[in-house]
């Protein structure tokens, strides 16, 4: 079974050279530019792990190292996110905490036991405590069924020797997506030293899977495909010799004195920045319905990653949940990859995304069912269908309207939520703004959240890549000016970009964003750190 896409109307994927690795004893053919997860998916694997406690089968969900559903043991090291690292010749990969295998896991009885005792999670803490002298034994046995991976054997870690890198920079940028790249470019043109960190192996953030043409101002990438923008910005960054890029580096904290700490393999990076720009993007949201953890229920972004970044066909027949731009664009991209889209369901009575995107899939015969939702995913170990139903004004399924659809893929496109945690840790104050996707850091007009710490892009509120790039440019220039770099005309440039950002948001689609931002921006004159309360 090989589900690699060999021909695509928009892009060509350079797979690199052929390699072979061992997966639970079986040799797997793969290519050096594929991640372990992509190679396994292409070879037909759907159960990537078993859940920690009830051993329910779990698939690939996000594809960008956020959801942890694809963690496996790689060369003896447990809990490796297989969507984040590339395959290497001779690698040993196996799934963990399942017996005898993740495909047929007898421990999944744990999932059934709860029903048997008709009890909620953690039943054994209350039931299996008698007789008292056996309690310890019960716990010992039961806990051995639970958990994530086994500690690595001594020999597999003996060769590892951690090292430390300390650096100083004018501006440290966390995240190499559209906002981070734009910020790095502007700061790089002005400052002496800029450091850009990203946890992926390539720059571009989510642009690398956006095969469609972008909307926006024609003077600013409109009509250009996301993948081309990523390539262009990455190339421009490469040309700036004062910008150091660290890839595969996960930032785990911002410490005193604006020290950014990141783990890059077995290396610790400590980078002190005079200014820090947080451009960490967003997480995908999921939706509550029966069996929503079944392999085959994936985040829209995850599907885009496997399909558009690694050129692997995600399934044969897809149900898309959500008709925002992400859901509509994904549906179109699925069609381009040769996947049939059985329907798009939307809970609201109207389509959420741009009409032109909707029209694009509609004229290919894809039905968009407004006031509909997915009630249930069908299947035991992988999605074999779904039940959808019409819903009433209070979003409750209307009895009698349920119908079964035949699909092997359910793509959840119900929105994103900002990855705001680092901003809070760095002294920012978050506010809950549903219009912007959830918790977002409060900031000034120039996106400063605390002294010398900025945010840009989706982390500051869910919007589009176009606005993310504008925000990146603004913070890149503003931070440079604050450090005494740049030219006098940069002040004017800054105002132009702020104006353009306002213009982008001035239409009806920006209404929600404007409402969200109204309470969020710290008024000029207020000291950062002194926050007016949210009413």
């Amino acid at each position, binding site marked *: 079974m090989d589900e690699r896409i060999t021909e695509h109307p928009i892009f060509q994927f350079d797979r690199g050279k052929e390699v072979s690795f061992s997966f639970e004893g079986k040799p797997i053919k793969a290519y050096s530019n594929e991640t372990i997860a992509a190679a396994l998916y292409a070879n037909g694997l759907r159960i990537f792990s078993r859940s920690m406690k009830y051993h329910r089968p779990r698939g690939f969900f996000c594809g960008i190292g956020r959801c942890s559903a694809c963690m496996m043991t790689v060369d003896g090291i447990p809990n490796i996110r297989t969507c984040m690292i590339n395959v290497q010749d001779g690698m040993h990969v196996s799934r963990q905490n399942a017996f005898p295998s993740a495909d047929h896991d007898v421990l999944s009885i744990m999932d059934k036991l709860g029903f048997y005792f008709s009890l909620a999670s953690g039943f054994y803490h209350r039931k299996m405590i008698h007789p008292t002298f056996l309690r310890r034994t019960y716990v010992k046995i039961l806990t051995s069924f639970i958990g994530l991976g086994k500690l690595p054997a001594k020999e597999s870690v003996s060769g590892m020797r951690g090292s430390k890198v300390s650096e100083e920079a004018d501006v440290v940028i966390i995240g190499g997506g559209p906002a981070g790249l734009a910020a790095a470019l502007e700061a790089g043109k002005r400052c002496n030293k800029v450091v850009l960190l990203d946890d992926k192996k390539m720059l571009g953030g989510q642009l690398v899977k956006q095969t469609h043409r972008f909307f926006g*101002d*024609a003077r600013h990438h409109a*009509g250009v495909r996301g993948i081309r923008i990523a390539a262009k910005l990455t190339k421009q960054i490469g040309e700036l010799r004062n910008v150091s890029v660290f890839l595969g580096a996960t930032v785990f904290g911002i410490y005193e004195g604006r020290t950014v700490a990141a783990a890059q393999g077995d290396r610790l990076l400590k980078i002190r920045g005079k200014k820090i720009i947080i451009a960490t993007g967003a997480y995908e949201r999921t939706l509550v319905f029966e069996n929503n953890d079944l392999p085959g229920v994936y985040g829209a972004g995850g599907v885009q990653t496997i399909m558009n970044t690694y050129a692997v066909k995600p399934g044969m027949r897809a149900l898309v949940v959500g008709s925002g731009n992400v859901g509509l664009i994904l549906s179109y991209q699925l069609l381009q990859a040769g996947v049939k889209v059985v329907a798009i369901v939307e809970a609201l009575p*109207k389509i959420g995304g741009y*009409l032109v995107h*909707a029209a694009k899939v509609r004229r290919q015969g*894809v039905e968009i069912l*407004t006031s509909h939702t997915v009630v249930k995913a069908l299947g035991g170990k992988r999605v074999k269908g779904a039940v959808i139903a019409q819903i009433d004004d209070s979003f409750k399924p209307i009895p009698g309207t349920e119908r079964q659809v035949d699909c092997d893929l359910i793509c959840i496109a119900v929105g994103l939520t900002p990855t705001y945690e680092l901003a809070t840790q760095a002294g920012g104050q978050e506010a809950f703004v549903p219009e912007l996707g959830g918790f977002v850091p409060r900031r000034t007009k120039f996106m400063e959240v605390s002294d010398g710490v900025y945010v840009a892009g989706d982390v500051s509120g869910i919007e589009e890549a176009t606005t993310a790039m504008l925000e990146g440019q603004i913070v890149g220039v503003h931070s440079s000016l604050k450090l005494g770099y740049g030219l006098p005309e940069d002040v004017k440039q800054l105002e132009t970009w702020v104006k353009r950002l306002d*213009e982008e*948001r001035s239409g009806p689609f920006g209404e929600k964003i404007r409402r969200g931002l109204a309470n969020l921006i710290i008024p000029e004159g207020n000291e950062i750190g002194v926050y007016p309360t949210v009413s």
Partner: protein
Amino acid sequence: MRLESIQQCLKDGIIRNDNLAPFGLVPPLSRLKEKRPIAMIECVQQIPCNSCALACKLNAIHMENVNDIPKIDFDKCTGCMACAMTCPGLAIFLLKSEGGKGYVTLPYEFLPTPDVGQQISALNREGKVLGSGRVMRILPPKRNDGTALVTIEVPEEWLLEARAIRVGE
């Protein structure tokens, strides 16, 4: 009227001719019969995008600001395809009527790429097959970053209906 049109489209994603008319986006019949093709822009929402207006070298597409709905001057438009080549919404079509036949140029981003002369199925805005048409001309995908512009010949009455094609079965 305009608002109602949009509300109607948002229920099922189909932008019908009736919904386009209040925006002045449906070219008059007399103009369709002229020698030069005419662009029909099926974009009725205020979205932040002005790629068509800036691509038009003849200033035939007018927008007040980036969020404005494009207004097309049917007299200025020569059907040069510059707007259709760049439109990220793939919402621009070129129409021409000649000798009782309709000629629709539409964006196409799927595989396989049809050949000139090939019979294809013409689809309407709902994706329903209208019948068969013939490929007359093609701007190859590689000349326009993946978006081919395919000109098909269909019966004249489908000019305002045929909006997609299916190649092979």
